[in-house]
């Protein structure tokens, strides 16, 4: 497992207008590891995830203080290039959001905007990405049909494929498997295991088993606070905080 710190979060606070959604978050995420974010609905997991590639910039009225360092550089410093940040720190969303274009064009979108023009190269990227996302077999005959005709689960895998096509450093995944069946889920989980050799992955999940299965580190959020972060093994066997234990064992809500 990687030792270098890929992401370092310091005293991060976030307000939606007057509502504070994150309080003084501190977190380190080592390179080439998978970090799972767990916690009850509305606790701020998605919000936190979105601060890591500045997707919250898009929402009006969001105020952020503190630092998020990726590769040692604060992404909230004024000289940050948000676009290349987002290329390095890619994201899969809770709800599938394919573009209203063909399946092929969806996957080729990223490479194209980053300058890949050659048809052969694109073909290859699209095929590889779709295979990685365990979608290739289902769509290989309809690559040029609209992506909106896919089922929810297929759409989500398409979004993953689309992200993989730009080969980011860090993958942010917001419940990427919540719309997938177990088999696809399994494939995606396997995929994350393969990817972590090269990538750093942060994944939000509601599924304790999933967190336990795939992640190296787990962070538990509650009401906008980061209660604790630890090695996943430790977290699920001997959590340091009573609230974590209560949550993991399903004792409160």
């Amino acid at each position, binding site marked *: 497992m990687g030792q270098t710190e890929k992401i370092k979060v310091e005293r991060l606070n976030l307000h939606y*207008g007057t509502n504070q959604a994150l309080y003084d978050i501190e977190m380190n995420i080592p390179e080439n590891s998978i970090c799972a974010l767990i916690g009850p609905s509305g606790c701020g997991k998605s919000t936190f995830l979105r601060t890591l590639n500045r997707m919250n910039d898009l929402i009006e009225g969001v105020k952020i203080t503190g630092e998020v360092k990726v590769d040692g550089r604060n992404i909230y410093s004024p000289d940050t*290039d948000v*676009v*290349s940040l987002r290329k390095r720190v890619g994201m899969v969303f809770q709800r599938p959001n394919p573009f209203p274009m063909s399946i092929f064009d969806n996957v080729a979108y990223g490479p194209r*905007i*980053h*300058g890949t023009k050659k048809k052969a190269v694109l073909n290859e990227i699209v095929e590889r990405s779709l295979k990685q996302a365990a979608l290739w077999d289902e769509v290989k005959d309809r690559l040029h049909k609209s992506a909106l005709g896919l089922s929810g689960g297929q759409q989500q895998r398409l979004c993953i494929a689309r992200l993989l096509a730009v080969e980011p450093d860090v993958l942010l995944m917001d419940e990427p498997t919540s719309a997938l069946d177990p088999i696809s889920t399994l494939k995606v989980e396997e995929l994350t295991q393969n990817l972590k050799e090269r990538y750093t992955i942060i994944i939000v999940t509601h599924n304790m088993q999933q967190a336990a299965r795939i992640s190296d580190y787990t962070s538990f959020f509650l009401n906008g606070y980061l209660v604790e972060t630890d090695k996943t093994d430790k977290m699920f066997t001997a959590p340091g905080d009573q609230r974590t234990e209560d949550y993991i064992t399903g004792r409160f809500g």
Partner: protein
Amino acid sequence: MKLSKTTDRIATVYFWVMGIVIVAILAWFLIRILGDGLPHISWSFVTGKPSEMTAGGGVGPQLFNSFYILFLSLAFSLPIGVGAGIYLAVYAKKNKFTELVRISVEALSSVPSIVFGLFGALLFVSLMGLKFSILAGALTLSLLNLPVLVRVTEEAIRSVPESYWEASLALGSTRWQAIRKVLIPASLPGLITGITLVSGRALGETALLIYTAGLSVSRTFPDFNPLVMGETLALHLWYSGSSSLAPDAKEIAKASAALLVIIVLVFNLLIAIPSRILQKRLSGGK
């Protein structure tokens, strides 16, 4: 990579320039119209009676007629326009009839107002015996409003997410209930924009009203009788600019133009404010 960033920067600058150009064009027109007209606007101009030969005529009755005709024309066109828009957005299956309606709407939207005027003169003024009257003008005007209202309604309703529609039907609502309680409220901001657009255009319409509403104003003011002639403000503006022999006709034309702009402005504000509040409420901002 570098290239795309440069492109982005250029694009941003370009969009800003375009935005500013548009604002500049609009502002230039506005300043010109208001600057020319405002000096002549006074209380007696806004409320007074028109005068043919002497200077100092007002536009009180015309102002009233403008609103009266607008009101009546909306009363006719709104139910039909919104109804047809809802039909297209909600009920219409892909069949010949729908296709026909759609093409009709588009065709109607490109009928020149002079043709509406001729048609209205034949149908309402002559055949239906309404003579030159506020009613004939309003009916003809509503034909002009219709296509825009249909399009805007359809567009507004279509932009409401499908899921609202599904959710309502799955709760056992009739289509009509879903339309009335969910779709229409959710599409209200769009609808209101459409109505403002239509109103603005209707207030400024001339060609069509010359043949239907006439160029006289009633002796009493305000006169709610829809069967009398009713010159509107825009008509009076046209008349002052092309035929009137009043010594201050030019000033009256300019002042009427400014007044029209002010009215549309006020109209926009009056409608825009509640619609903005509405939009906020719909989109979940507190």
